[in-house]
């Protein structure tokens, strides 16, 4: 019951975020020069023809009317019609959401799998050779641009070793997962270091507290101190960092999807913006905003699982 109330309060807090995102993307894209019809016709079109086409699409109405009409329809699930592809935006989104969600999931899982053991060990043995190496590698990890890392991985595993596919999404479910290995690894090589450093820092903090002294004095085994007591407390800041970065990843997916030619929402967004396909851009910003809000909600709920004190407010 208390979880339900928490969830609802979080959802209510998310509404103004959604409004702000859609309003901003609606206005921002209209301010950018260029429009879809002239781009498609490569400018070999007269002003009258363009005006006629836009009148047909209802794009000559005042901006406020267009925005409210969009919001009204979006509430019922109608995200509009793509100008360039002449298909409903919701259909295009449904077609392409799977690769993006899978990429986020695989990337996050890889990051956690890398970060947890390394972070814990580094915190357990601070200032040793292992710890120093980990810290240096982490800095390298987030300094390198991820599209470059992606290309290097492609070259190494895809071409030299011929172990993994270098682009595309694959046909069957198993195939999809194989195609996600390199993109997921690219994400993990950035996100992993972030998590390692956060986890290590918060664990060191917790390990220095009185509670841990007491536990040690009671003669509890080291692994139990680390695993149960220290880790549980260190997880909250780490989860926060993870949640913030996954939201960032939703936009980072755009670059990864481009490099690995993944047919997800990120590459669709790039296409939509290059062509100024306004309905598609708006529809996608709603979907991406909802995804980000959803991820943050999951993060908030998982705090509650780790530390029930959070539920009290």
């Amino acid at each position: 019951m208390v979880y339900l109330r928490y969830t609802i309060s979080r959802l209510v807090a998310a509404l103004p975020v959604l409004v702000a995102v859609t309003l901003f993307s609606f206005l921002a894209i209209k301010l950018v020069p260029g429009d879809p019809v002239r781009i498609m016709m490569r400018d070999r079109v007269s002003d009258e023809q363009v005006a006629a086409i836009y009148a047909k699409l209802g794009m000559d109405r005042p901006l406020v009317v267009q925005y409210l009409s969009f919001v009204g329809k979006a509430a019922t699930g109608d995200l509009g019609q793509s100008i360039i592809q002449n298909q409903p935006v919701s259909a295009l989104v449904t077609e392409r959401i799977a690769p993006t969600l899978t990429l986020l999931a695989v990337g996050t899982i890889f990051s956690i799998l890398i970060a947890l053991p390394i972070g814990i060990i580094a915190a357990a043995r601070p200032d040793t050779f292992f710890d120093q190496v980990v810290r240096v590698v982490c800095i390298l990890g987030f300094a390198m641009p991820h599209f470059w890392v992606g290309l290097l991985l492609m070259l190494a595993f895809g071409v030299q070793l011929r172990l993994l596919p270098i682009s595309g999404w694959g046909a069957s479910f198993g195939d999809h997962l194989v195609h996600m290995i390199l993109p997921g690894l690219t994400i993990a090589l950035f996100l992993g270091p972030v998590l390692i450093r956060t986890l290590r820092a918060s664990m060191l903090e917790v390990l220095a507290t009185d509670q841990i002294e007491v536990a040690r004095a009671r003669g509890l085994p080291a692994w139990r101190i680390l695993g149960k007591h220290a880790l549980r407390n260190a997880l909250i800041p780490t989860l926060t960092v993870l949640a913030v970065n996954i939201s960032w990843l939703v936009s980072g997916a755009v670059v990864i999807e481009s490099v690995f030619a993944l047919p997800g929402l990120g590459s669709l967004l790039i296409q939509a913006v290059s062509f100024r396909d306004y309905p598609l851009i708006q529809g996608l910003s709603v979907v991406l905003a909802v995804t980000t809000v959803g991820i943050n909600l999951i993060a908030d709920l998982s705090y509650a699982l780790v530390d029930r004190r959070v539920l009290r407010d």
Partner: protein
Amino acid sequence: MNSRNKLLGAFTALASIVSGLLFAGQATSADLHRGGTLTMGRPDEPLTLDPFIPSDNGSIFAIAQVCEPLILADKTGMGLEPGLASSWTISPDGLTYVFALRDGVVFSDGKPVTAEDVVFSLTKQMDPSASFGFAFEPVKAIEKTDDKHVTITLKTPYVPILSALSLYAASIVQKAAYEASPEAFGLKPVCTGPFTVQAYDRGSQLVLAANPKYWAKGEDGKPLPYLGKVVMKYMPDGNARVLGLKNGDLDVALQLPLSQAASVKATAGLALEEAPSYALDYIYLNHAKKPIDDKRIRLALNYATNHDALMKAVYFGFGEVPNSFTPKVNYWSANVKAIPYDPDKAAALVKEANYDGTPIELIVSSGNSSHRQTASILQAAWQKAGLKVNIVQYEGATASAMVRKGEYQARVGLISSDINDSDEIATLQTEFAGSTHAFFSWYKNDEVTALLNQARGELDTTKRAAFYEKVQGIVYNDGYNVPLNFVPFINGYKTKIENWQNIAVGWWWLKTTRIP
């Protein structure tokens, strides 16, 4: 017993000799290696397969494999051949064209192609909101004459109508299927082309299957194409396409990054294709802005440009130094002399024009590294001639919007012709009164406009060629723009593929391609 065997033996021998002689000239299906899948890596993907929605090359090149117009671009892309129209007649005054529809052609669903379908399709194309409405501007009426004939009447003589009718946009579609649902048609067209759409995975790939009902026959008398399937993979990253070709995933990699072309050529089992195109890379110049409004400055820009150095540095030697303001389409003339690299002459012209130091802003689309390289080279060359040049970067569509409004002086860009008749592109680039103001150059030359008007109606090809040669000389030597390269198509493919061809109008001749 013995004699009977001998007779049998002789008879068998004779029979095999005779049948051998009979079938000697005819290839069997087994020899022709029918079937197989051709996998292509493309830099862009189809956004829609509807021929009547304005669209980009990603869509156009795919539509051209599935839908066909009355007249087809031929195997080189530079000529025309009968398509769904098997023949046509032109009235002596050049105003009436009667097309005879080819017998026995059916759509991919088996229904026959009728004159109503033809009239419907062509009329749809004349709608101003359709992509190439302007190419059909001189058309007065399109009518069904009888079940097998369609007549097109023109307002004025317009020889390029035949090329216009070979546009993908003039494809003949099945009226019933299109009217039932244009949206569904855009996903799976019902047309007459050599291939049909088997799967359309947006963002990923387009899979085409051979159309068993296609009207053109192969060497064995069975319908073309020889291929069983074509998979067009969407791979926007150039490096990924090269990697895909090298590790065997792709049979063909389109638009190779020029820096990697030599390495592909040197790889065993791979070949490099350099095919002529209808594209021209050039520097757009705005004749309405200072100092570009002065012809001497414009010519100085041309004289100051070291084309050979540019070719080597930016294009890795691929292409041809242009002698024209417009792409190398059918009426291009080799007789116009190219402006030579002469930095002294350039400096003299700048002095003669009393250049007052107004800087020239050269716009480059951000993210386009070869354009940026071109701009840097030109900036250095033009500054040596005494001009002040600044390079500015804008996102592609933003830069186009600025150019369209005339808010620019110079921009690195290109232009390409969609049809194999010089009229479309020459008119577009020089017609000040047109909606694009001479393709954003604000160039005005009444003599050129008059020459092109005459050329458009001239039925004699030699006389027509003379008009275009004259126009080429005048406009090029007016310093209309700074042409940089007649860029070819640079693709990589496996040497075992037979009859692979990228044609000049942009798409690929896949009908006779074979994979042994």
